């Protein structure tokens, strides 16, 4: 019994220690974010990689999700003669929840893993040590541009994902379910409120920071060799995904609990 409790206690302490390390890493990143030097070229590269190059996967995810959502709502709504709510529910579902969460998770899969693998490889091949010897702080050169790019681009991706998701629902509703195009669009626009859009963008910003920060953290703290790189990549995606879902719950409570 004592051994069991000791084991549980050790696990709890390990989790708390990990949370503490991530919090310190975030605080150090924030400090470097507001103090020069700034590496503009690296920031532009991160904008391109995280934002522009993620557009295809975000677009495809959103369009299929919006389409599937329209089908589901239509099928479920028909049980109690509520098929007409498809435009409103697709809009609110995509903008408030599915858009930000799915974009966040796709960014975790695509960007967090790539950042973690890249930085972990740099660590095991001594490239990070080389940066230090070249008078360049790794946090400023590697972490800050990526986190800043995540903060800027992921809300935009979420916005684009919301629009494409609604478009996917529109296409299915109009082409397969017999909705009038003008009425569908009018219902969508009328039903959405500014707070819905604001919550979507704020969630996007939070998820962008979480995804990039966890990629950088795992990369910087990776173990040695190929196994270390693999473990860092895996743990970064796991942690980012769970944190994105947890942050989504908290932010949903903040915006819509009343």
């Amino acid at each position, binding site marked *: 019994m004592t051994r069991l409790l000791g084991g549980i206690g050790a696990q709890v302490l390990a989790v708390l220690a990990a949370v503490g390390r991530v919090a310190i890493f975030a605080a150090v990143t924030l400090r470097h974010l507001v103090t020069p*030097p700034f*590496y503009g070229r690296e920031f532009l590269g991160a904008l391109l990689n995280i934002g522009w190059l993620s557009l295809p996967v975000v677009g495809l995810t959103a369009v299929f999700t919006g389409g599937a959502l329209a089908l589901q709502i239509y099928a479920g709504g028909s049980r109690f003669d509520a098929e007409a709510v498809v435009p409103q529910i697709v809009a609110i579902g995509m903008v408030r929840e599915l858009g930000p969460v799915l974009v966040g998770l796709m960014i975790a899969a695509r960007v967090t893993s790539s950042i973690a693998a890249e930085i972990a490889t740099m660590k095991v091949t*001594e*490239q990070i*040590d080389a940066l*230090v*010897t*070249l*008078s*360049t702080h790794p946090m400023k050169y590697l972490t800050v541009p990526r986190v800043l790019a995540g903060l800027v681009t992921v809300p935009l991706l979420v916005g684009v994902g919301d629009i494409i998701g609604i478009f996917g629902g529109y296409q299915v509703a109009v082409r397969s379910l017999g909705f009038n195009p003008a009425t569908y669009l009018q219902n969508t626009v009328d039903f959405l409120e500014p707070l819905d859009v604001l919550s979507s963008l704020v969630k996007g910003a939070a998820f962008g920071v979480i995804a990039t920060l966890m990629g950088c953290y795992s990369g910087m703290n990776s173990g040695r060799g190929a196994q270390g790189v693999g473990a860092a990549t895996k743990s970064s995606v796991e942690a980012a995904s769970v944190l994105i879902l947890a942050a989504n719950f908290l932010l949903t409570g903040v915006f819509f609990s009343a």
Partner: protein
Amino acid sequence: MIRYEDVHKSFGPNRVLRGLTLDVPRGESMVIIGGSGTGKSVALKCVLGLVEPDAGTILVDGRPAAEGDREAFLARFGMLFQGGALFDSLPVWQNVAFRLMRGALKRPRADAREIAIEKLRRVGLTPEVADRFPAELSGGMQKRVGLARAIAADPAIIFFDEPTTGLDPIMAGVINDLIREIVVEMGATAVTITHDMTSVRAIADRVAMLHGGIIRWTGPVAEMDTSGDPYLDQFIHGRAEGPIAAVR
């Protein structure tokens, strides 16, 4: 110029440095030899702040290495890493000119590129290599690019970490000759760590033998073969029998 005073460093239960004391005079080429895992790389990294010693002092020109303006301190150093440690995402010339494109030594992009190409030429690489990426180069070429990067800002002190590891004997000889020429030409202080005895004889003014976390022997390279030190003798002749355990 560089002085280690009773430097200790442990990684968990593994006591790597157990009181390292060593002087590296200005303008000399010191080669630290010793078996794998004896702390040679750790000794170099302690100077640069990549590894923090547990105890002891490291002085560079009489001032503690850990104090003062870090950027200015590091600007005096160049380092060639064992695996090259070139930045995969940057073309060769930007690797070489990295320090010249950022921070206190920043200069116009065109000037930085010109200096990079000149340094590449100095290490025997043609300007055509400048726009290639590190992954497109052979191991020997990567080492040369690493060497060009180490000397790009004309540092006063250059560290070479296993400069010939993984190279064929001819390429190793080329790198050894380059290191010797560059150190003499620049008048730099050099510290090389290696267990390649050919490199030692080609590069060193002085040799220090690191074993068991301390310096067992140090002296001019010319006295290495007649030192009478059993550790050094065993190491330089590659004998399995002797005071150094073959299985560590």
